[in-house]
């Protein structure tokens, strides 16, 4: 599949979150124009489903709702060095191969139980160096966390970012502070 088709698919994915109130919409969602890395629509779907598994949508928004996988791909494309991008891409392939080998299916077709099983295994191996699947998972998770905790939703509804606090108190009891 060429990039144009992949991009079209990405817009469809984006449209799927239209039920989220407009204040939670992220600007970066519909701007996925990759310059350096090539992502198939299957891989894009994998990133979307992986981020949703890491921070799921429940009765509150999750990673998918803040466009975490699009943010992750854009950041890897624009802010990572070429060797880091290569490592990420080969790690993603290794992740896809592992999933196929283990379950004979792509990640997106796995049941929630199977996804949990796979990620539990990777979390247990998170200190392993030179494991490219683990390395890929850690980058994907790190980017998902950054996208979620740096999102408008998170910074206006969960831990409210104050642009202009207008105050500084050098020493107050922990309970009195706004985190």
């Amino acid at each position, binding site marked *: 599949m060429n990039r144009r088709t992949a991009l079209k698919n990405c817009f469809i994915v984006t449209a799927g979150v239209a039920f989220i109130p407009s204040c939670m919409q*992220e*600007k*970066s969602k519909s701007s996925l124009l990759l310059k350096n890395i090539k992502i198939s629509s299957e891989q894009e779907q994998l990133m979307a489903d992986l981020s949703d*598994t*890491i*921070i*799921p949508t*429940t009765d*509150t928004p*999750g990673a998918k709702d803040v466009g975490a996988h699009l943010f992750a791909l*854009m*950041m890897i494309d*624009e*802010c*990572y*060095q070429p060797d880091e991008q290569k490592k990420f891409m080969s790690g993603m392939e290794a992740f896809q191969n592992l999933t196929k080998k283990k379950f004979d299916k792509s990640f997106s077709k796995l049941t929630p139980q199977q996804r*949990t099983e796979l*990620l539990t295994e990777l*979390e247990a191996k998170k200190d392993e160096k030179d494991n490219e699947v683990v390395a890929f998972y850690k980058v994907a*998770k790190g980017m998902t*966390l*950054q996208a*979620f*905790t*740096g*999102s*408008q939703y*998170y*910074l206006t509804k*969960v*831990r409210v*970012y104050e*642009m*202009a*606090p*207008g*105050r*500084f*108190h*050098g*020493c*107050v*009891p*922990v309970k*009195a*502070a*706004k*985190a």
Partner: protein
Amino acid sequence: MGNNNENRQFDAIVIGSGMSGGWAAKEFCEKGLKTLVLERGRDVKHLKDYPTTNMNPWEFKHRGRIPYEIEKDNPVISKCYAFKEDAMHFFVKDNEHPYVQEKPFDWIRGYQVGGKSIMWARQTQRWSNFDFEGPARDGFAVDWPIRYNDIADWYSYVEKFAGISGNKDGIDTLPDGEFLPADDLTCVETYFKEQVAKKYTDRHVIYARCAHLTKPNDIHLQQGRGQCQKRNLCQRGCPFGGYYNSNSTTIPWAEKTGNLTLRTHSVVHSIIYDDQKQKATGVRVVDANTKETLEFFAPVIFVNAAAYNTNLILLNSTSNRFPNGLGNDSGVLGKYVAFHNYRARVSAKYDGMLDSITDGRRPTSAYIPRFRNVYKQETDFLRGYAMTFSASRGTKQNNDGFGNDLKTKLLAEPEFGPWYVGAGMMGETIPKETNFVTLDPVKKDEWGIPLLKISIDYDDNDEKMIQDFFKELTTMFTDAGFIDIKTSDSKQAPGLDIHEMGGVRMGNDPKTSMLNKWHQLHACKNVFVTDGASMTSTSTQNPSLTYMAFTARAANYAVEQLKKGTL
């Protein structure tokens, strides 16, 4: 621009619109002089030209990070702590104005109206006689032709107008000034202050004085500035005018008089010297847009192009009388440049006071004035170091696992981590003839001006000072019960401190210095240099406040001399 109708004759020309040029403009315009300010970059209007100032974190495409493409093309400026997505438009990119590094030097520049006063760290500590008497006492550089008393009133003058927040601490090495209220120290900073006071009579932990309007006075309201709102996003330009920069303060003040002509995109090529009249008559400018060469004339010229560009302009201003650069009879022009040694840091944790925390944000830190070799020489290295000091707590986030388990942790009330404390060394360096800037004999920039060649390095004195800082701070931290004490040496090249100084130093003797006690070139009295280039030695304190005071003092002197007809 550059049309025939453009006025070419002024009462004063100021080269540069940054930290010091803004002050020259204000003083001249207030005194009724028709003043031309030449700025090599674009205009940056207060409020209007701060495009990122009100952006939320999630509105930055890369969440503040610099894209790899830009980082790769800009290895030097990418090292600067403030070169991030929100302020990168205020910094000069590496290829916009190349220079030759004979030794590694990170030259951090801001080419626009306001210069680096837009992105500066806003630290404003006065210098003392321990600084001005240093070279004479310790036998390096040359004696400063001035003392603290010459400049004290001018410190007050600029502090009142700029707005400086601080405490009157009564410390010999750091004279008190005209202060707006200080912000708090944090719990652990106060604790450390008390611990240090128990053991030492000559070491002090104080609130770092900074150019913030904690409580504006009338003069600041007249400038159209308001109270600092503790955003800590200063490098973007402040929508409240809460900190001092030229754009919000001196330049509009000068403009209001009707006497200011601000010419942007004007790269100064050289200062014109008239052999018959035996003085400078004007300034040669290359229009950055048209590449046309233009000349502007005035009886007095202030060079405030920022330290090394000021050196470059004088080195490039050659004439029959001055074949080696304007005013350079002594041969010291470009030499004895120095900087601040910012390589070293000591950090630690503190497990006490865990029931307390800070609330809100603070645009400054704590400060430990120099205590080494103050009253007498006591170590095997010359001079000493001041330190930034801060203690703060962050949130502790457990990101283990995934799924609902992880999400629950992300949505829960945050937990706070231990107190993190850190001290950053600000070391005085010794100006030496072997540290110099000069013109490259071959390479030129796109405006036809020779590239600056920079040859500056650390020396043994700097290395010894770093070791002493590590030892002393480790002891002080240990005594205070701090744990996990770590020393680190960034090994960063000179320049990243953004405190380059010297090359056009002041001194009493024209044979060994460039400027007299009024910042006039000894050999060409109607040219003044009042920016970092004029510094004879570096002190440990951040130099901007001193440039401002020097400029105001010299500008007022120049106006008096113009009236007397002696220029």
